[in-house]
Every structure is written in structure tokens, then in C-alpha cells.
């Protein structure tokens, strides 16, 4: 079943599963199997923002005045965020669009991925603003072993799925000899790969991103790099939505009504998913060690960040109905909530630049005298 950009078959959209059903044809949203994806699209569109709206001129000065070990923390964290969004800006499209079967889900994947490209552009905006040689930072992302090691574990599920789907769509199910190598392709196995991919994306968005957000906000807690924190706040708002998107996919599968096979796979893969969570948590702890290798910063050190990794991992496990794997129950960084609050992020330039813009805009103190010159 080679991919068709416009499927000519007539079929009932409602009877299609989310993935591996008929290829989509008309992008229609009048009838929807899962209206949540349409709601996510609308929400994501209402969040639209551009990095250039955030003024970073103070951050440049702040960065120049940071001690060397804090510069290392800030830049390494930014490199890691750049890596994660580089992956997320393309991979959902490449991996999921060829196999998706519902128009509203297809459009959600595109909208989701598009918003990640805005995040990538905002890292360039930040790096260009705080240092004079952005190339050095970007080049290090592909050569720094601490970063490439992590790239491997976040991309392997995507790459595995993409490769198998290519074989499946060209050659179909069965045993195939490809370049002298025997490859066995079965739809069941592809679905398993899909499940693990979405689970690992869920972990990427639920744990890895949040650990990096904690570092960004730790600077801003000390009134340093606040423009950067403002951008990360906008990114965090988008990521919360993406996370909801992948949680819905996982839970719809878990119920087994969408695709009974995916329901079985959810049960089979339970331990693998817990392992993905555990592996990510361990890697984030290793990363914390690398970040703080030359020294801690006020308010954040290796131990606190590791505790946060454990806390957030437990939280995310609970969200997908799995049991805790760590003992940490308390959030060691309680101030992070206030930074993550997203119902009030102001993006319009006239609001975002001047924090006092709205303060005192309305004088609600009235006395009878104020009406004295009004005649009816």
C-alpha cells in the first residue's frame, strides 16, 4: 500500500482508526471521530506568537556578566532545547503523516510540528542576541558527546518507525531481502513501533522539556536572563498542549476501541513504556551532572534538579495511568509552577514589552462628584 497524497477510495471516515487505516483524502473537519484534535488545533492557533516579539536586550548584558560556570549551564541548556525542538519540528510530520488516517489528527500533527519550528526559531533569536558567535553554539550540538548521546535515545524510535513504514509502503508485509539483509515486516510490529514512538515523544515532552525549563526559570528567579524566560514560558505553554495531544493518543489506544490491536499492544508494552520513562529520567540526571560540573547556581544544583526529575517523572507516569518509580513526592522547585502558569502570558508587543502597561489603566474609584458635571 504505497502512500497516496489523495486517496481515491471511498470509505467511512468514522470507521478508520487513528493510524494505519485508509490514507486520508479530503481535509474535512465537518465530521470528526475525535473532536479533541480539532480543539487542540484551535487552541494551538490561538497561542500563536513570534520570538521577535520578546525583547532580549537586557539578556545580552546579563549573559556577559554571568560567571563562566553559569554561562556553561545556560548555553548547554539552550543547546539541549535546540536539539529537542529540531527533532520535534520535523519528526512528527515525517513519521506520522504517512500513516495517519483521520483528517483532524493529520492537521493536528502538522499544527503541532509547525509550532515546534517557532520554538527552533526562537532559540536562534536567543543565541543571536546573547552571544556574538552563534555558529559555535549550533556546531557544538552535533559534536558534543553529552548532547549527541541524548539525541540517539530520543530519535531511535522515530527512525525505527520511519524505516519500517517505508519498507511496508513499498513492499508490503512479509519477508524481504533489502541490500542483502532480510527484513521482516508485519503490521502488528509496525503498530508496536508506532506505540513506542508516541510513548517516547510523550516522555520527551513531559520530562526532558520540563527539566530544561526548570534551568531556564532558575536564572529568571534571580532576575537574570528574563527575556529568555519569557520565551521559554511561551514554549512551555505550547508544550503543555502537545503533551495533552500525545496523552490523548496513548489513552485512546489504551481503551482499545479505536484499534483493538493497539489496545493489546498497550498492555504488552507496559513494561517497555515504564523503561522509556526510567531511561529518560536516568539520562536527565546524568545531564544534570554535566550541567553543574563546574559549579552550581543559586537556587539550583545537581541534587535539586535530580529530585525534580524524579518528581516530574512520577507525575507523568500517573498521568498515563502508571505507578510511580521514584520515592520523591514533593516538588523540590515549588516556584516553577508560577513560571509555568500560562493562562496569562501576554504576547501582544504593547503588552509584552512594558510590564506596567495594564497596571492603573482603569481607575475604578468613583465618587458622586465625578458625575457633578453630567446633566440628563
Amino acid at each position, binding site marked *: 500500500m504505497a502512500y497516496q497524497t489523495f486517496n481515491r477510495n471511498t470509505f467511512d471516515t468514522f470507521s478508520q482508526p487513528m493510524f494505519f487505516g485508509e490514507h486520508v483524502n479530503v481535509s474535512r473537519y465537518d465530521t470528526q471521530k475525535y473532536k479533541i484534535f480539532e480543539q487542540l488545533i484551535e487552541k494551538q492557533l490561538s497561542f500563536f506568537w513570534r520570538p521577535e516579539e520578546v525583547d532580549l*536586550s537586557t539578556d545580552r548584558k546579563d549573559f556577559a556578566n554571568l560567571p563562566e560556570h553559569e554561562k556553561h549551564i545556560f548555553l548547554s541548556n539552550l543547546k539541549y532545547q535546540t536539539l529537542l525542538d529540531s527533532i520535534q519540528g520535523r519528526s512528527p510530520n515525517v513519521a506520522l503523516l504517512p500513516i495517519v488516517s483521520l483528517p483532524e489528527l493529520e492537521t493536528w500533527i502538522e499544527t503541532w510540528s509547525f509550532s515546534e519550528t517557532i520554538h527552533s526559531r526562537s532559540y536562534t533569536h536567543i543565541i543571536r542576541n546573547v552571544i556574538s558567535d552563534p555558529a559555535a553554539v549550533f556546531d557544538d550540538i552535533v559534536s558534543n558527546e553529552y548532547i549527541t548521546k541524548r539525541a540517539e535515545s530520543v530519535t531511535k524510535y522515530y527512525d525505527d518507525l520511519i524505516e519500517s513504514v517505508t519498507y511496508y509502503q513499498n513492499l508490503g508485509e512479509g519477508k524481504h531481502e533489502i541490500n542483502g539483509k532480510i527484513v521482516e515486516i508485519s503490521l502488528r510490529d509496525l503498530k508496536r513501533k508506532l506505540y513506542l514512538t508516541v510513548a517516547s515523544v510523550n516522555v520527551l515532552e513531559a520530562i526532558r522539556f520540563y527539566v530544561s525549563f526548570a534551568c531556564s526559570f532558575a536564572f529568571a528567579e534571580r532576575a537574570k536572563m528574563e527575556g529568555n524566560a519569557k520565551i521559554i514560558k511561551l514554549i512551555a505553554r505550547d508544550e*503543555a498542549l502537545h503533551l*495533552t495531544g500525545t*496523552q490523548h493518543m496513548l*489513552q485512546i489506544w489504551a481503551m482499545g476501541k479505536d484499534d483493538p490491536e493497539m489496545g493489546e499492544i498497550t498492555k504488552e508494552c507496559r513494561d517497555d513504556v515504564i523503561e522509556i520513562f526510567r531511561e529518560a529520567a536516568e539520562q536527565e540526571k546524568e545531564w544534570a551532572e554535566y550541567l553543574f560540573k563546574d559549579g552550581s547556581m543559586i537556587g539550583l544544583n545537581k541534587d535539586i534538579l535530580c529530585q525534580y526529575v524524579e*518528581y516530574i517523572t512520577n507525575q507523568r507516569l500517573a*498521568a498515563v495511568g502508571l505507578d510511580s518509580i521514584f520515592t520523591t513526592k514533593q516538588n523540590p522547585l515549588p516556584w516553577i509552577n508560577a513560571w509555568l502558569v*500560562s*493562562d496569562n502570558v501576554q504576547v501582544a508587543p504593547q503588552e509584552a514589552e512594558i*510590564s506596567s502597561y495594564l497596571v492603573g489603566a482603569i481607575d475604578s474609584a468613583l465618587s458622586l462628584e465625578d458625575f457633578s458635571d453630567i446633566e440628563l
Partner: protein
Amino acid sequence: MLAMRDKSKESNSEFHLEDDAIDHQDFQLESPEAPSSSDEARPQSELYLPVGNPEAPQDDQQLEIQGFEKPVYNLQIDGIAEPLAFHYANNLLESLEAQGVQLPYQCREGYCGGCRTDLVEGKVAYLQEPMAWINEGEILPCCCVPKTALKLKLKG
């Protein structure tokens, strides 16, 4: 038709595109100097978390609360002995926070699921349709209010 065409030609000739020289730039190349004191404009001060105590609106001078009686719903939380009640707050999350119960939260409008809490007993009404995934027996306190007395169990 012809007359109309002639007219449009005439009006076109009234524009002197090439003669108009641009003699000013109404944009700045350098971004304006930012205020040096960063203490005043901390981004945290831009957070609009509820000002004052949402469960005690009588403290707010601007609110006229005479003449309306709101029902009070008792809240019981696993592991917390003090008596808690929902009365005036806009949602369950605000009410709990006002009474010293800390819940994780992020979006505070139902799409992130950060405040997921187990509902052991009782009923809630949603003020808006929550977008986050909610398992059976869970509620999102950020966007619901109690309909009856509640027994809750916090996550984690």
C-alpha cells in the same frame, strides 16, 4: 466604459511615485535601552494569579458581596485533617490554594492536566470543557466547582 478608463488613467498620473524621496526612517536600528534596574520589572510580577484571597472576597473593597448567599460545600482531602470548604472561589483549585493546599498546576484552564486529582466521593460541575485527558475518577480542579461535598485524594 471608455470614459471610466480615461478617468482612471488621469487619477493614476496624479501619483508621483519616483519623485517622492524618503527623507526619514521611522524605525530604529538599535533596540531602545532597557531599564537597568531589573528588580522593579520582574516578570513574576506579570503573573496574574488571584490577588487577595479568593475564598474571602469580603476583604476586597471593590467587591459588593451583600445580598447574595452562596452555598458552602465541605471538602475533605486524604491526609489533611483541617476542615476545608468551598465557598466563594472561582474554581476548586483557587479554593484549595486559598486554604493552604498546594496542588501542581500549569495552565489553570483545563488543557494541561497538571492539577489532576482523584475524586473519591461527590460531584463536580465543569465551568468549561476540559481538554486534558481525564481518567475515570479524576477531576481537574482548575476548571470545576463542587456540586456536593467532596472527598479528594491528591496525586503523588
